[in-house]
């Protein structure tokens, strides 16, 4: 099954290892800021990390590996991300919580003009009132960044999660 908005930068490293290292440092900074934005529940700010035509897809690993396209979250374009942000901040009912998103093992895989293919691991720990902190989701990003006016933005963030059986629900994006 195809998802037409999937972006694939060309395989193979067209960049030197020094350029990939430099890209990795830049992406690490990006990911730290991204995690901080979500940790403070700034869903509007989260949408601003993406290009207008970006794909944001949170997909269970078993579905992904079976070629099943269903997303836990599936946003084609920033407009859909803004609608999710609005709902989270204004209309959705959910218990208060603390969020703790860690992004590690960042790698820039290839550079193709303005596009950088990258990957990272992520871990979301949630803490609810009167409950112990718990692992809510662990997964891997399959990213494509685009340099727009000198700034990196996500053109694709596919979040492939290992924690297939979700604790209750995933409220905020990862």
């Amino acid at each position, binding site marked *: 099954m195809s998802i037409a908005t999937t972006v694939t930068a060309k395989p193979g490293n067209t960049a030197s290892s020094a350029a990939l290292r430099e890209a990795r440092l830049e992406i690490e900074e990006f990911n730290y800021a991204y995690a901080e934005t979500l940790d403070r529940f700034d869903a509007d700010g989260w949408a601003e990390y993406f290009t207008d035509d970006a794909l944001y897809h949170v*997909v269970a690993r078993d*579905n992904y590996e079976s070629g*099943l396209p*269903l997303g*836990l979250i599936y946003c084609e374009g920033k407009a*859909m991300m803004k609608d999710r942000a609005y709902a989270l901040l204004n209309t959705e*009912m959910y218990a208060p919580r603390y969020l703790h998103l860690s992004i590690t093992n960042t790698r820039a895989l290839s550079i193709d003009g303005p596009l950088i293919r990258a990957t990272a691991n992520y871990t979301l720990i949630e803490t609810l009132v009167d409950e112990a902190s718990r692992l809510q989701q662990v997964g891997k990003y399959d990213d494509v960044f685009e340099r727009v006016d000198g700034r990196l933005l996500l053109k694709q963030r596919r979040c492939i999660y290992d924690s297939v*059986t979700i604790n*209750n629900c995933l409220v905020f994006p990862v």
Partner: protein
Amino acid sequence: MDGNSRVGETPPGPHSARNYVWPEDDALIPDWIYTDQEIYKREIERIFLGRHWNFVGLDCELPQPGDYIRSFVGPFPVVVARDPDGEVHVFENRCAHRGAEFCREYRGKADSFICPYHNWTYNLEGDLTAVPFRRGIKGKGGVPKDFDMSRHGLRKYRVAQRGGVIFATARDETEPLENYLGPDVVAEFDATFDGDMKLLGVHRNVIPGNWKLYQENLKDPYHATLLHTYLTTFGLFVSTNESRIMVDPLGRHAGLLSRRSDGRPDVSEEDRSNMQAFKATMELNDPRVLDFVREHDSKWSGAAMTIFPTLTALRQTNILNTRLLVPRGPNEFMMIWAVFGRVDDDDEMVRHRLRQNNIFGPSGFLGIEDNEALKFVQDGLLKARPADGLAVLGEDDEPEDTIITERAIRGMYRYYREVMGL
């Protein structure tokens, strides 16, 4: 997740000291039906292993011969497999030898199942076909001479199918599936399940609540008009829609049927003041999410069906899904959502369904709210001083278009009490 470890660990106290007397007023629901271990054991015996059809999966999850999925009958792990002739079988995921849960994959393809512990081998019908060293070595050991392979297959469930939906029952005397569903349910069932389905994917989540709360949730049009902004504001399920709350004659199944009008719902000032979730001025940046591509003959654009005991089936605009409830003790259940489209969907229709499915699922706009609300309820039932819950809204003989009602919840518990002897 600690659902399994909780079994048998209900602390002594008011919750276990009951003598199970249902309140006289049948609009009252005692909280021990949601938390008590003895009640849960009785549910297993009389409901999941009783004369009921348990949903186990969709044809489109195992379309080819040799395809299989892991599934459950009540809390019990089963395998649903399609044999080389295309026939579907449901058998226990428990080796007949030492009890190992041998099938560990969500889904796959096989020509046989081999338990990894001692390599006992079963075919796709669940029959035992091979036992290694059956005759021992050099005439020593092995299974007894009178060991009958045909009597040591995997325990099987009887299977019934309709429109690409697979059900299983432990009992020979369970009535035919069409009788079990009844004519009203069958009509809407057929609009959702036309047999030509294509799997889009599966969601899984665990809710820290009793499995019956989910059936109640989808028999409860009252909450739908209050909790869910997406249903009310965008007119998917709202007081101004033409609606029907359908309950089968025994009370066990129900359908919340609703017909979307074009455009935004015209909700009166008075109703608005009652509906915190209604946001008259909310606009979507990407309204494609709400597009409705007409694709069936039913007049109802939304049909949330609850099929006792563990299936809920949803058709809402172009969202199609089944939700299997898998009890894991009284205080927790797993949900397996199979989300599907139609075989003839083109790429754009697939993407449309994927976009629209942001409304449901364990990260959906409704899913988050329902899952959170059910956790709140179970927390209250578990932690607070025992009391009876109220399901008092509406009347049992009201017109079927009454939506501020809990008639369908009361119906389910009338049936439940009879089966459970409560």
